[in-house]
């Protein structure tokens, strides 16, 4: 039996078995996720209740509040409980309460405990206001796209990375005028390991710009402005990863970001963040992204920077299945799943293009509704910008042929520096030329039965299914401990951020899970 209208002769039963195994893998950890919370999850609740700003040493007030609750031994009840209790006690707003906590006038866990129902009701009202605001952001985006328009898929995705938000804006607006549909502001390299989110507009960064709520707001405003000019909604992307996954998600939801890098496993593998911490954090971050209508981008492409793209192709597919199931559990619909993969095979490989094509087409068929995020060659880019431009052209051809959703444009200067203004123009021109010139190629071409492309795709799918069945038996944590993704090994108790994991009490309260996961969108 083969998939109806599969060009690759993929067996739907194999796909189904793989998907079921991934489902069970995600379900197995969901119990653990539901029993625990983390410091950043609670800071997110504080932010969504309206707490913002920093103290005199630039420490964010959400950190001040959560530290106060943690020091008082109250984090198991959740920040919403203590902030709600303080509101009932004092009649103040969450922000006013945070400011008083900061100057030592309120110690949250020492206040008299009010009636539970009263606390819930008070918090619920504020929470509802926040989620209504996020819903309005979502509607604003939809209206803009309906009334003004948007680019055709694959969306052209480019990065800006000057370190200075105001310089980023110049580059982002230029890129939008040149044809970019998605602007990603690369984060400064060390931010993923900070256990707080910096505050305000920033002008210094290394290899990127700090993700702050104010930077989000400034860039959003600039992209709306240029979007009206060029007649396309310009999507804004940032990084919902590291030690503050859900906080960044909350900031993005409040400031109407559209795309977030948001992988269930990436932080564990590539930033050595503790796996228990990440698996809890990713859940709440995805609940928020799902509710806010944000397209998540998963990070499977990264496996191929450490592992071989031909030999380890099945691990990419296996991880996509797992990411899909974690996302579904967090309420993210398939249409918001930018599952990631990459064009990273060695260019010297004979028929390498055919293998890339097989992989991209296979991914398309296995996840038919997902706006797949396709990453350009990076590992085998050299200082030879002329060859690099051709590598990027082949990558663009595979993308239009197989209907990818989001095209992270390759830069001819990839191995040399962060993109210069004209590097970006050249790569947009490259993609536009090929996308336009070969727009319906995929509709016209079928693959030879049992030929190299079909067999390769069937083989990779079969290997992914085997891997998922193995993981289902072993559990995801044990699999990562053995180094099966990206060749990277991590320990259950190792990595950064484990201290920020706290078991919930029976009285734990987080209104946003219910409002966002169960609530109408």
């Amino acid at each position, binding site marked *: 039996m083969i998939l109806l209208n599969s060009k690759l002769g993929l067996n739907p039963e194999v796909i189904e078995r793989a998907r079921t195994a991934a489902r069970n893998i995600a379900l197995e950890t969901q119990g653990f996720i539901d029993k625990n919370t983390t410091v950043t999850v609670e800071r997110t609740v504080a932010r969504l209740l309206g707490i913002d700003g920093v103290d005199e040493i630039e420490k964010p007030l959400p950190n001040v509040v959560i530290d106060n609750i943690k020091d008082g031994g109250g984090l198991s009840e959740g920040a919403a409980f203590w902030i709600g209790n303080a509101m009932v006690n004092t009649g103040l707003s969450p922000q006013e309460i945070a400011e008083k906590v900061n100057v030592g006038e309120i110690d949250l866990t020492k206040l008299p405990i009010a009636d539970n129902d009263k606390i819930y009701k008070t918090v619920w009202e504020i929470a509802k206001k926040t989620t209504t605001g996020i819903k309005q952001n979502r509607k604003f985006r939809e209206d803009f796209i309906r009334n003004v328009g948007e680019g055709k898929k694959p969306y052209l995705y480019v990065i800006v*990375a000057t*370190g200075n938000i105001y310089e980023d804006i*110049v580059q982002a*607006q*230029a890129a939008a*005028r*040149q044809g970019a549909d998605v602007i990603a502001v690369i984060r*400064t*390299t*060390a931010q*993923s*390991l900070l256990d707080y989110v910096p505050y305000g507009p920033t002008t210094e960064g*290394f*290899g990127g710009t700090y993700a702050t709520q104010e930077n989000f707001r400034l860039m959003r405003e600039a992209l709306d402005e240029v979007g009206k000019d060029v007649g396309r909604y310009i999507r804004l992307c940032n990084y919902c990863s590291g030690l503050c996954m859900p906080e960044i998600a909350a900031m993005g939801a409040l400031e109407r970001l559209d795309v977030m890098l948001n992988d269930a496993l990436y932080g564990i593998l*590539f*930033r*050595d963040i503790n796996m228990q911490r990440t698996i809890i954090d990713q859940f709440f971050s995805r609940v928020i992204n799902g509710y806010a209508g944000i397209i998540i981008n998963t990070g499977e492409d990264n496996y191929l*920077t*450490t*592992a*071989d793209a031909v030999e380890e192709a099945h691990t990419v597919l296996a991880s996509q299945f797992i990411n899909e199931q974690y996302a579904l559990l967090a309420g993210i619909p398939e249409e918001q799943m930018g599952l990631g993969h990459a064009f990273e095979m*060695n260019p*010297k490989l004979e028929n390498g293009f055919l293998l890339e094509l097989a992989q991209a087409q296979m991914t398309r068929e296995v996840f038919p509704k997902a706006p797949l995020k396709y990453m350009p060659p*990076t*590992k*085998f880019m*050299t*200082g030879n910008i002329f060859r690099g431009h051709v590598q990027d052209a082949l990558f663009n051809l595979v993308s239009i042929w197989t209907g990818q959703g989001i095209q992270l444009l390759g830069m001819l200067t990839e*191995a*040399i*520096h*962060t993109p*210069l*203004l*004209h590097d970006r*123009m050249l790569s947009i021109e490259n993609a536009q030329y090929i996308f336009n010139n070969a727009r319906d190629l995929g509709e016209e071409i079928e693959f030879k039965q049992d030929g190299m492309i079909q067999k390769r795709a069937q083989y990779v799918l079969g290997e992914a299914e085997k891997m998922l069945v193995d993981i289902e038996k072993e559990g995801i944590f044990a699999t990562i401990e053995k180094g099966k993704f990206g*060749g990277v090994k991590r320990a259950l108790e190792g990595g950064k951020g484990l201290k920020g994991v706290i078991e919930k009490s029976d009285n734990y309260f987080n209104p946003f899970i219910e409002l966002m996961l169960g609530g109408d969108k």
Partner: protein
Amino acid sequence: MSLGKVDLTKIKPYGDTLNDGKMQLSFTLPVPKGDEADEAAKQLARKMGLSEASVVHSHDLGVGYTFFIMYGNCSHTVDYSVIEVPKVDLEFMDKKGVEQYIEENIKRDVVIIGACTGSDAHTVGIDAIMNMKGFDGHYGLERYKGIEAINLGSQVANEELVAKAIALNADAVLVSQVVTQKDVHIPNLTQLVEMMEAEGIRDKIILVAGGPRLSHELAQELGYDAGFGPGSFANHVATFVVKQMVERKLI
């Protein structure tokens, strides 16, 4: 190329005729596209020593800036015959050769620590040298018999790297720096040397830097034993390390 004789004391670029000086360049000027912009680009090229400078393509970048592709004939020459460039001057052994060399000359496992230091999160370089798989068909140090390779990964603080080097009694430390925005790698690389000197381990360890914009000369200037740029593989680094160990009697 046998037409005409190249005068090595006065070389200039070659397009299709000896000494035509042909060069191509591309850049952006912060002015709107137009005749004045083209003229500005040509004047700039002339100041760079290019005669018959021509703008073959200009492109509006959408923010009042213009991108140019130009050709021109370079009027300058350089004396190739007197050039001397410091480099890792070694006959590189392959993996087998290195393994045999260790067995015969060092007679114990060589401990090599690798890390991508500071804020740099780009491990592609250090992975290419260290990891089992290696890069482009060249196995990494982890696969070498006689080498104990420890890859600390990304964003390793210099303090941590020095502590690890002491704890593991490392013979060599490899530092990779890939993202070099605003030259952040320079102070970071210098700091590591200073810390190793302060700990009194600098002369007991072979210290090597690598990355796309690191030359051997720059690495030496910064106090490293060697620098490996693009196109370097594990066997190059391994050859250097084991030969240095023998030469400096660090066995």
